[in-house]
């Protein structure tokens, strides 16, 4: 285990440093991404090792700085996240080998590759950190490296603004995280995580609640919960696609890790019920609003970024339900909720990263991110299309994929609200389940749009017509993740026992033997009579029924081959202009949910001079209101600017005046001290 950790650190460091020593970009490419991929493999091994180890691996180097110890600890919770990060990191770095070819000559491949190694290393270490101070340093490094990666293409319009927005939001979050750790350290007397979880030093109730909220805001800003999600759709798409995959797939998961660490490890014991309820409500709100905004988005990568908001919401629904059950001493159900949340965490990491890599491949081939300019890509890019379809089916939670298994587990935890003692919660959890159902259905519509408009029918632009399949390394990267999606869906019997090792120490109960029945072929949270699914059997049923259909069709039709002809276009030759657009596709949804979207339509018409019945030129603009930005963030920014404007009176550029300020301040301070 220590060896594996050393290998991992060495690979990331070599991958980070060696590319800077050469100027040949092919070599830089191989060194940087080879290092990251090797470290990814080591990380996967380390993650498995940590899950199965009897004792957590600990490492500690003291420093001269007060409170700071370079302490690492690999317990099952950390190991699970190391595993997730490394798996996605492996796929992304293999993919990057082909993908960065696009940047050759514009951006230094060596620097981007080196930063990628640093970013992956900082994420891996964040989840292993065992000291609050050290954690914050790594957290900052992770945030800053990702910021630098976001602004890789800083010369493109909008990228710098996106980066700045991200930088501000992440630091507001960090401020709250510092507050959380300060509260803990006040009671614990040090910044060591071991002292934070010390059971005989309990915080007073008020401080505990403040710590709960500061952690929720601080980590929530990174995770992208509503209403702190506004930076995601700007920052994630601006980065190169393999970085977007890492940010959306795993970086926001470090916040999920930290929330579980704080709630179930540091604050464990008696929660008030409304903590869990707050997390559950924020989860439901994030899930629903995330998918609703995603539907209206026609930039493929922004659409995917909004779906991260949705999926973080689904994860929080599981964790929130777990917290509520924890409050009432229903420990097995608490473990189930947490397990559902964690299962969705690794699922989302794989399918979201896959979809971002797919979007990157499409962008690589067409040089645009606008869905309206795609069309017909499946025939030109069959592999990318297949992988994207696997990702789309998974994220839409359709059986028998991995998204379905974890969403089903979340549903089950919410349905078990029957066992709670209060009527309010008994009703609220099923309503959360109904919101989850609505979310799932909207996600289905959204990915039918995203896949259908991009890959089906005829190309809508010259870009799409000229697209060709992407290089092999990019396909391998996507293939690894697509394979993981399939495996995580079809083999819950392998995944559930692993997750059980994580939830066991946190909730005090081991549930995998209860959750899995019939030698693991069936997932049944309570009993087989109560509820059960078996994805392998469902997959076999689907294949069997499909073959039956094929046989019937063969038997009747004696295999007459199909005749090909053009789609009937009502007598006119069919052109791509006749196809439904993404805007048209979501129009009914926009109209039904207009309270949320607040759509506006702007119509400009230019008439011929002779008559106003003949239109020379017509232009329609559809617009939806980003509610949180308009009504929450803009007023705050406006207020801040107004205050700053007033304060400018004292800043006139005269050095003498500034010296006077300093003098007056000093005098005042001395008076106050005296």
């Amino acid at each position, binding site marked *: 285990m220590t060896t594996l950790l050393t290998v991992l650190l060495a690979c990331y460091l070599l991958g980070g440093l060696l590319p800077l020593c050469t100027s040949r970009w092919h070599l830089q490419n191989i060194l940087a991404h080879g290092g990251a991929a090797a470290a990814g493999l080591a990380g996967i091994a380390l993650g498995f090792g940590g899950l199965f180890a009897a004792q957590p691996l600990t490492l500690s180097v003291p420093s001269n700085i007060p409170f700071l110890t370079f302490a690492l600890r690999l317990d099952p919770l950390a190991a699970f996240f190391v595993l997730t990060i490394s798996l996605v990191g492996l796929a992304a770095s293999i993919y990057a080998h082909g993908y960065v070819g696009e940047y050759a000559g514009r951006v230094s491949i060596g620097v981007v590759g080196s930063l990628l190694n640093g970013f992956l290393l900082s994420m891996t270490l964040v989840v292993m950190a065992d000291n609050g101070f050290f954690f914050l340093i790594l957290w900052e490094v992770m945030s800053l490296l990702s910021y630098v990666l976001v602004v890789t293409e800083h010369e493109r319009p909008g990228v710098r603004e996106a980066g700045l927005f991200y930088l501000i939001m992440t630091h507001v979050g960090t401020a709250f995280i510092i507050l959380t750790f300060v509260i803990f350290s006040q009671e614990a007397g040090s910044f060591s995580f071991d002292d934070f979880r010390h059971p005989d030093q309990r915080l007073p109730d008020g401080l505990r609640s403040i710590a709960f909220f500061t952690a929720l805001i601080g980590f929530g800003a990174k995770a992208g919960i509503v209403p702190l999600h506004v930076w995601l759709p700007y920052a994630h798409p601006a980065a190169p696609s393999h970085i977007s995959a890492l940010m959306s797939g795993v970086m926001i998961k470090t916040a999920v890790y930290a929330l579980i660490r704080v709630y179930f490890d540091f604050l464990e014991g008696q929660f008030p019920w409304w903590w869990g309820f707050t997390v559950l409500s924020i989860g439901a709100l994030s899930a629903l609003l995330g998918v609703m905004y995603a539907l209206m988005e026609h930039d493929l990568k922004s659409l995917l970024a909004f779906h991260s908001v949705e999926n973080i919401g689904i994860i929080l629904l599981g964790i929130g339900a777990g917290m509520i059950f924890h409050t009432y001493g229903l420990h097995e159900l608490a473990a189930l909720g947490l397990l559902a949340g964690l299962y969705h965490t690794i699922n989302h990491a794989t399918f979201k990263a896959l979809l971002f890599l797919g979007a990157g491949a499409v962008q690589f081939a067409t040089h645009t991110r606008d869905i309206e300019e795609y069309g017909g890509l499946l025939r030109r890019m069959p592999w990318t299309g297949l992988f994207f379809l696997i990702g789309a089916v998974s994220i839409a939670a359709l059986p028998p994929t991995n998204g379905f298994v974890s969403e089903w587990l979340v549903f089950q935890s919410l349905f078990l609200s029957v066992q709670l003692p209060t009527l309010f919660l008994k009703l609220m959890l099923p309503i959360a389940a*109904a919101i989850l159902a609505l979310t799932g*259905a909207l996600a289905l*519509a959204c990915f039918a749009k995203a896949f259908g408009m991009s890959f089906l029918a005829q190309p809508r632009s010259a870009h799409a017509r000229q697209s060709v399949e992407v290089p092999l390394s990019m396909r391998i990267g996507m293939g690894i993740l697509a394979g993981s999606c399939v495996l995580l869906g079809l083999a819950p019997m392998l995944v559930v026992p692993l997750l059980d090792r994580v939830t066991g120490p946190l909730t005090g109960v081991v549930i995998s033997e209860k959750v899995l029945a019939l030698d693991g072929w069936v997932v049944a949270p309570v009993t087989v*009579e109560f509820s059960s699914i078996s994805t392998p059997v469902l997959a076999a049923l689907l294949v069997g029924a499909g073959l039956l259909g094929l046989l019937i069709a063969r038997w009747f039709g004696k295999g007459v081959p199909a005749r*090909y002809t053009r789609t009937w276009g009502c007598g006119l030759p069919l052109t791509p202009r006749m196809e439904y657009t993404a805007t*048209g596709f979501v129009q009914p949804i926009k109209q039904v949910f207009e309270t949320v979207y607040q759509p506006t339509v702007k119509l400009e018409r230019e008439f011929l001079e002779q008559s106003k019945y003949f239109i020379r030129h017509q232009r329609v603009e559809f617009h939806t209101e980003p509610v949180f930005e308009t009504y929450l963030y803009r007023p705050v920014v406006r207020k801040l600017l107004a205050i700053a404007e007033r304060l400018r009176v004292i800043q006139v550029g005269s050095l003498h005046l500034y010296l006077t300020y300093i003098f007056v301040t000093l005098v005042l301070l001395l008076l106050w001290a005296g």
Partner: protein
Amino acid sequence: MHVMVQLVLIVVQLVMLLALAPFIVGVIRKVKARLQCRRGAGLFQPYADLAKLFRKQPVRSSTTSWIFTAAPYVVFASTVAAGLLMPVFLSHTPLNFAGNIIALVYLLALGTFFLILAGLDAGSAFGGMGSSREAIIATLAEPAMMLSILAIALTAGSTNLSTIVHQSALLEGVVLAPPAHLMALAAMFIVTLAETGRVPVDNPATHLELTMIHEAMLLEYSGRYLALMEWAAGIKLLVFLTLIVNVFAPWGIATSVTPAALATGAVLYVVKVAGLAVVIGVIESMFAKLRLFRVPELLGAAFILALLALVFFYTLRG
């Protein structure tokens, strides 16, 4: 149960679903024809239609991808798989363990997903329009369905279909919380009409471009592909009717594997489902199709009904 017996039961259930689906479609058409003072085609006309379609050479659009060819098989497979998870004439189905009612809903959603993709693939405006409308209706129907399912599941203390049906059947159809059950039934019925594309949400009998939803997505299909799609639509209707019949009125369903019980169960099941088909035929004749943007109100009502069912369940039980 012996493994062989279970296999036989699965095959019988499969054959029954496949064979009964066109008949149900025939019954609805016949009822509508009689109410319009027409004689109408025979009850078994849909079988002849299917056989004919299967024999015809299919015509495919040259702009489509493999999704277009795969979609009919996926839609057919997902609907059949959903049908096999559900108790039909025996309260304990052998495949019960493979998926509960949520799995059934999501299996049907898999079919919907590929149906929507197929509608987009041909590249005509009609297909896209049908897909877009199908997406919004599926979106609104799903939460209502989930809540009404939950209300039913709570009374039975399980989300497992076999357990729900078995519990209700053992009580001889006497339900514990009648108001909750009735509201859930109403919600479920509205969802059924929406999900299976019946009047007042969609009209399966027209090909008018302004009104069609399901048919618009199928416009480019012909031959065996169309046959599979039509058959799958029939099976989907049958799945929903079976759900309603067996969950809300499981009288006479076989609760043990004896020849007598199975025979009674099967006969009564066909009678009940055919009866429900007559009801749907009558409703289709009584109402006009709603405007698309009035459908959300109808499905919203279903959602509220299901929510009330849940509230009633808890308040009446105390």
